[in-house]
């Protein structure tokens, strides 16, 4: 028999929060081939646009993913607003930014916890998720739900944040900043974490460009690409610093995301300060006609919605390409040559989200 080990890694595997299978071929514990088997979470929701009208689909878009749920609905709404030539009020743009960035913090904290868990650092996992509870409480107070904010609509947002709510946001942001100041340097300087991440899952800049990596994965390999630079929502006004690293390993990805968490807090502060008054949405009349590709930067990178309407209240076609879909090919390039113990670390280092990837 073969000297090679062949194992299914997933779909039901506790290290993988979502079902996906990697068929690993290993020599002892060194991975020589890793191929993904997907489809454990494919529902076919793109086709639901034929059954639900374009307003209902805002909620559908939100449930493409339960992590950056809000950002999905925003992408969808931005796309429709472009087709239908709707200009949304300024306050709505700022609110979208605030919720978006708070979402990014929660997503990155969640990721940090799961990554720590993948290399058995339970304490970091627990602490990251403890901080994340602060963010989720904030979301529930401002939007009415911890996960599915349900505040997006075509033409703006459904819900306003009062001045008191904004003050609440600032307080939480400060509290988070305090936690990060204590916690993030500890994590980044920990000997054992470095052992498990430095030099693991390397992706060179050339590979990243070639294979179309997006988001923190690309930025950790030295590609300074971040769609917030295009200034959608209120990013143009609020401005932000793009965080990049060059090493291209798991540690660099961790550093990028940690840096982004700080940057998120800064943006939220600036957005609250610059928050314009006024309406939060405009009424939208008629049905969409035409096609558009809407893109924005999710916690995991560039998400793309292709939307096509033909004048009916149901869209003709919706297609979603998520950041994880783009990062799968780079992942396959990172795995061969690593050790079995590194597989979960590398997989989680791209912050995979299979749910929206398979739709």
């Amino acid at each position: 028999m073969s000297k090679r080990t062949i194992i299914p890694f997933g779909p039901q595997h506790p290290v993988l929060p979502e079902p996906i299978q990697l068929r690993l071929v290993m020599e002892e514990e060194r991975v020589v081939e890793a191929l993904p088997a997907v489809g454990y979470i494919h529902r076919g929701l793109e086709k639901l646009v034929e059954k639900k009208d374009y307003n209902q689909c805002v909620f559908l878009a939100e449930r493409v993913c339960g992590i950056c749920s809000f950002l999905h609905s925003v992408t969808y709404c931005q796309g429709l607003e472009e087709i239908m030539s709707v200009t949304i009020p300024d306050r709505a743009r700022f609110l979208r930014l605030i919720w978006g960035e708070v979402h990014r913090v929660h997503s990155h904290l969640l990721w940090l916890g799961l990554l720590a868990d993948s290399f058995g650092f339970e304490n970091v996992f627990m602490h990251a998720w403890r901080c994340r509870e602060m963010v989720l409480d904030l979301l529930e107070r401002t939007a009415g739900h911890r996960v599915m904010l349900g505040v997006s609509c075509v033409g703006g947002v459904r819900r306003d944040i009062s001045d008191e709510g904004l003050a609440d946001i600032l307080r939480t942001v400060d509290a988070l900043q305090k936690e990060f100041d204590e916690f993030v340097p500890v994590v980044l300087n920990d000997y054992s974490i470095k052992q498990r991440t430095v030099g693991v899952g390397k992706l060179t800049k050339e590979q990243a460009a070639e294979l179309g990596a997006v988001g923190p994965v690309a930025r950790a390999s030295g590609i300074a690409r971040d769609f917030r630079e295009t200034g959608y929502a209120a990013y143009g006004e609020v401005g932000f610093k793009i965080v990049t690293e060059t090493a291209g390993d798991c540690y660099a990805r961790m550093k990028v995301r940690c840096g982004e968490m700080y940057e998120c807090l800064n943006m939220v502060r600036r957005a609250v300060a610059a928050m314009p008054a006024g309406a939060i949405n405009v009424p939208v009349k008629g049905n969409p006609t035409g096609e558009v590709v809407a893109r924005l930067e999710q916690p995991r990178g560039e998400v793309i919605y292709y939307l096509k309407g033909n004048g009916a209240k149901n869209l003709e076609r919706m297609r979603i390409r998520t950041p994880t879909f783009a990062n799968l090919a780079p992942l396959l390039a990172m795995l061969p040559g690593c050790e079995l113990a590194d597989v979960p670390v590398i997989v989680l280092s791209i912050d995979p989200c299979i749910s929206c990837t398979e739709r």
Partner: protein
Amino acid sequence: MLNNELPVTRDTLLNEVAARRHQGYRFVTVTCVDLGDRFDILYHFDKDYVLYNLRLSLGRTENLPSISSIFFAAVLVENELKDLFGIPVTDLAIDYGGRFLLSEGSPVAPQRKPDAPPAQPAQTKDGAVK
């Protein structure tokens, strides 16, 4: 009609894709729209936040050459086209044999409009592997 759109045919597709690669574009994704009589297949590329799109109009039974030899990253989405639209994509770098997203018991080519019968024969029991 999208911005930066270029119509291509099956014959010019690979050359155009190669040209994008040469110009430093990044492969973004492929979108397929079933127009009922034909497929619109959109290849999206990006450079400096600007999209460039190739639009290929494909007959309902025509083969589609894979671009995975030029952009490896396209292999997954091309498998998806094969699965969901039943489009025979040829020369895939990794071929999931029509069982990429779908499995035993799934509908065949579910995103294909119903009036056109699937060009692919029904899936075999075990599916094919690469």
